[in-house]
């Protein structure tokens, strides 16, 4: 009986040994495949076309056109109509400051002056009032929403960030590394 057990044990040991050899071979093979896979991934990334824009120019055109049209319709509906109201001095100053919030403000005030037109006269007529409101919205969009590198970034960080990006864009990464 002991001899039988001994023989069975030896057979199991041999099987165990063979299984270990097979397992090691499988693990080696898996490591090789893993390496090949990583190399293939790198090669695929290298060969892939560079990613373009997330959205096409047409998408931006459509969205901007919608924004323009919605603004236009709303302003026409809300700011149209006769008024007996007269703008007080404080309101005129506020509106003048809003114009000067963007560098084009001064040039607009200059054209107004040349045409003997004041903020008060713009306000008195529906059509010029609507145009003026849209100009103020355009200044607001340009300086507050689309002007910053990223909406919400504080001014003291936004300006150097934009300038830095402009330098990198103009010179390229390699030239920046060489120059600075």
């Amino acid at each position, binding site marked *: 009986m002991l001899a039988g057990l001994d023989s069975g044990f030896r057979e199991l040991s041999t099987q165990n040994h063979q299984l270990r050899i097979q397992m090691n071979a499988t693990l080696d093979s898996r490591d090789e495949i893993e390496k090949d896979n990583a190399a293939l991934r790198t090669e695929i990334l290298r060969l892939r076309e560079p*990613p*373009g*824009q*997330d959205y096409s*120019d047409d998408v*931006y*055109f459509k*969205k*901007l056109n919608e*924004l*323009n049209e*919605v*603004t236009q319709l*709303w302003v026409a509906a*809300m700011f149209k109509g*006769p008024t007996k*109201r007269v*703008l007080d001095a404080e*309101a005129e100053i506020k*509106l003048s400051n809003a114009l000067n919030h*963007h560098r*084009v403000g001064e*040039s*607009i005030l*200059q*054209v107004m002056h*040349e*045409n*003997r*037109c004041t903020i008060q006269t713009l*306000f008195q007529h*529906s059509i*010029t009032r609507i*145009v003026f*409101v*849209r*100009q*103020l*919205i*355009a200044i*607001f*969009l*340009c300086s*507050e*929403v*689309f*002007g910053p*590198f*990223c*909406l*919400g*970034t504080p001014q003291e960080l936004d300006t150097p*960030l934009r300038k830095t*990006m402009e330098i*990198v*864009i103009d*010179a*390229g*990464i390699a*030239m920046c590394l060489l120059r600075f």
Partner: protein
Amino acid sequence: MQVSQCVFSDSNGKEQSVTKVLTVRQTIGKALLYHHESTQKATRDNLIVNLEEILRLLLPTTRDIRPKVRELVKRAIQIAHLITCEQALFNCDLCHGGSQFKGDVMYLPDENQRGRVFMCTFPYFGKRLLQNGRERAHCLFPASVELESIVREFA
């Protein structure tokens, strides 16, 4: 030709892929948006209040404009966020009063108007393109303008 496929050279003949530069810009934009995510609502609300405060001065009669101002600002911010995260170089600008009308970058709704640019009622949106080392501006959306004759007629 797409910007991402362009390459520019400096005077020493070194070449730098614009794609890498644009990717850096895009990455910084996305990271900044992520960083400011918690304060975006407060920033937006602040913008709405500021715009409403100015526009209210020009209402012919008292009206509640807050809901529509909110909608406009939200729409604009949505586009601004897309631009921030885009792999391209956009720019937004306004036309100066007194400048000459240029049909390639400006749109005139009323063709009967005459004279120099009086007001710019919607900003110009452009995209910087770098092609074979040369930079050029591509008009994405023209600026809407009104010319001087409007003020002579009504004011």
